């Protein structure tokens, strides 16, 4: 008789407690962002489709997108798409064209680099979106508040 455990329990335990290095967390983040983007994409396809099927509903839908929680979610989505893309590129390129780069030091660096690149690509967009959020939902115009603003 073996200790009671199931693959699911092992998986959850492993995801949560295995002290992996960079690659482990990159895997988890890639998966999480992939699923997140997919969830959004599915909703997005369906809501956009209303422009043809139930045009009246579309305004409702877009109204939802303008709600604060949704807009914050979109900022997250932007990060997810970017991180997943950069990291996916790392995986695809290493796996298919330069397998020799699957070496410990190189990958630890590469994984960190993906995160840095993703954050760099995300920040400007995130700031613009944050500005829009504050402007439209709270009437706060960040630019106007800057000393050299308009």
């Amino acid at each position, binding site marked *: 008789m073996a200790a009671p455990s199931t693959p699911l329990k092992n998986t959850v335990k492993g995801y949560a407690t295995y002290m992996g290095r960079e690659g482990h967390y990159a*895997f988890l983040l890639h998966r999480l962002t992939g699923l997140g983007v997919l969830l959004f994409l599915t909703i997005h396809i369906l809501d956009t489709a209303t422009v043809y099927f139930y045009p009246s509903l579309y305004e409702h839908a877009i109204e939802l997108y303008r709600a604060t929680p949704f807009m914050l979610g979109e900022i997250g989505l932007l990060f997810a798409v970017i991180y997943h893309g950069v990291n996916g590129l790392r995986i695809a390129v*290493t796996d298919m064209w330069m397998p020799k780069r699957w070496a410990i030091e190189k990958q630890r660096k590469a994984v960190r680099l993906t995160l840095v690149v993703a954050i760099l690509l995300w920040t400007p967009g995130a700031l613009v979106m944050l500005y829009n959020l504050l402007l439209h939902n709270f009437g706060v115009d960040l630019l106007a508040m800057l000393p050299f603003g308009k």
Partner: protein
Amino acid sequence: MLVYLKIYRYNPEAGRNVPSFDTYNIEAEPTDRVLDLLEHIKGEIDGTISFRRSCAHGVCGSDAMRINGRNLLACKALVKDVGNEITVEPILGLPVLKDMIVDMEPFFDSYKSIMPFLVNEDVPADGKERRQSPEQRERFDDTTKCILCAACTTSCPVFWADDQYVGPAAMVNAHRFIFDSRDQAADKRLEILADHGGAFRCRTAFNCTEACPREIHVTQAIAEVKNAITSGGVEY
């Protein structure tokens, strides 16, 4: 130095049918192996603690364990490297039978499934060795080092989740033959690994490479296998 050691215990026979931890404070040298500490506790304090070991220097593959959350060989993990708070658990994803002892059968079954033996019945007429250049030999040198300790396979998130995945160790061993210029069954092995549960289940999580005590480039080996499949084979 004083070491605080937490050891995973499970033994239904002795009524410990819910996994739990025993803790010990013991004196140790920084250069002691975690295996030495386990031996010490087994010898002096509690003989019921069970784990496998044999060579004590990292070449037999008996004592892969999860030490402070990550797979290591207890005989290659020195106190100075893992710190003085040490948690020892069995490797993850294989059924735990008693304490650190897990059922290795599924692991060896995966190994056996990839035809881990040279296929080539032709031998030179003079009965001597088949020739192989140093470069050809070098091509698969890395993967000949595997000691089947299962540290890689049981660190792999895909393996934890999916016991039908052959796992990195089996692929390392497949690689050892696929890229051996003397072997003639590369296509069969590649076919096996092209299927469900094969190379394409690998999500490049890289835990395997980080865990391998023999410093084999496990993920690289798997990538080479994948590429051999997608490009239709290997050239020597």
